[in-house]
């Protein structure tokens, strides 16, 4: 199965990459290619050119210094195997170990996943729950986009066509923060039928001071489950508050159904996975 013909560019700098994107509005960025190349084989994507970022300097690597900064072209395998990341925020390594399979992990990149905004991706919800952001560089300069503002719709982000994600930042979590990701993967593809990522902070008074809960797989884009968050804040993190948050989690979400799973079943999974993720986060405090 061959993709349609296209031109291929391999820039060595972000500036050069942006130039290629500016010159050709139908060009697409090639990161790990594990979403784009399959889409091109099926003619779901027919770009006129690919701008391969693999040889651009400075887009790979993990820096832990309070905040965690991850180069956009860092692969899942690098996240999975990084001792620094396993020590600083093991959740990110664990999630990377459960994206696709080891071969997908060898090629797929964090920046690529966020830019592609697949509605069933894992890291979209995880970065959203952790309050992360991306650095985007384009002809208009550089800007920081929070995950809250990045995901717009199905496969759609607020990135401009000539912008490249260069870095992902996960802020240093406040003291007494527990985080977890719970996913029900499709048995064949591994994509999330439903995934729930949570980050919960307990304040000095013993009550939840901040809760961020994000779902994937069941909505057009990674989305905050705000009803569940509101059910937790100001309450002690215990069985009762977790139960209330789990029951509230599907409220207000635009939950979809398809031939894999009905909307009703997905709503049920949102509740179950929210409960399990919160229980895991409470244990990790």
């Amino acid at each position: 199965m061959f993709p349609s013909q296209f031109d291929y560019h391999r820039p060595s700098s972000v500036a050069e990459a942006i130039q290629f994107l500016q010159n050709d509005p139908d060009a697409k960025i090639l990161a790990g290619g594990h979403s784009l190349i399959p889409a091109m084989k099926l003619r779901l994507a027919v770009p006129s050119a690919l701008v391969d970022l693999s040889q651009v300097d400075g887009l790979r690597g993990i820096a832990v210094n309070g905040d965690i900064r991850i180069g956009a072209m860092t692969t899942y395998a690098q996240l999975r195997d990084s001792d620094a990341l396993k020590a600083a925020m093991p959740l990110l390594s664990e999630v990377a170990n459960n994206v696709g399979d080891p071969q997908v992990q060898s090629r797929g990149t964090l920046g690529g996943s966020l830019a592609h905004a697949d509605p069933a991706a894992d890291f979209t919800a995880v970065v959203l729950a952790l309050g992360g952001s991306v650095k985007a560089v384009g002809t208009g300069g550089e800007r920081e986009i929070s995950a809250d503002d990045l995901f717009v719709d199905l496969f759609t982000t607020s990135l401009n066509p000539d912008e490249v994600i260069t870095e992902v930042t996960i802020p240093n979590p406040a003291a007494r923060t527990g985080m977890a990701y719970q996913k029900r993967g499709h048995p064949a593809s591994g994509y999330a039928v439903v995934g729930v990522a949570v980050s919960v902070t307990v304040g000095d008074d013993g009550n939840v001071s901040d809760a961020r809960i994000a779902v994937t797989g069941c909505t057009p884009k990674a989305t905050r489950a705000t009803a569940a968050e509101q059910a937790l804040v100001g309450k002690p993190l215990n069985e009762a508050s977790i139960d209330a948050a789990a029951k509230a989690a599907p409220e207000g979400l635009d939950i979809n159904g398809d031939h894999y799973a009905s909307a009703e079943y997905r709503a049920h999974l949102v509740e179950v996975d929210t409960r399990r993720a919160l229980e895991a986060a409470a244990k990790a405090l």
Partner: protein
Amino acid sequence: MAEAVATRIPVKMTVNGTEYAAEVEPRLLLVHFLRDNLGLTGTHIGCDTSQCGACVVYLNGESIKSCTVLAVQADGGEVMTIEGLAKDGEYDPVQQGFWEMHGLQCGYCTPGMIMSTHSLLKRNPNPSETEIRHALEGNLCRCTGYQNIVKAVQYAAEQMSGGSAPTS
């Protein structure tokens, strides 16, 4: 949209220790380059949608699905296919494991299974059964039910760690 003119692009890569140079269309997949241009047909094409793992090879030391990588992306790189595994006519321990433990029936998935196993044991020389099954999630076998594949991986791990092979 008009079809772009197919500009061929020069690529160079080392495959199983031998350097190759060619001019290829950007859309040529690595698996086709290996099979059709180099005649290395040990790497199989199964699903062609990065699910089944029949096409797994090493690229720069990492196991990848060569149906989802363009040949131009491997430019300047080092590839190892199933044909590169045996040394001096001796099977690699992973190949021996699949032979000894009957880790195959039709054999179609086997080259990919062996390459993925090889990559697992490089990262984790002593995997648990759960870790073996997790590491082979990207390789589908329609014949064996995976039991003997797990045994083959365990056999190879034993061999590579210098221990004695388990008897079946």
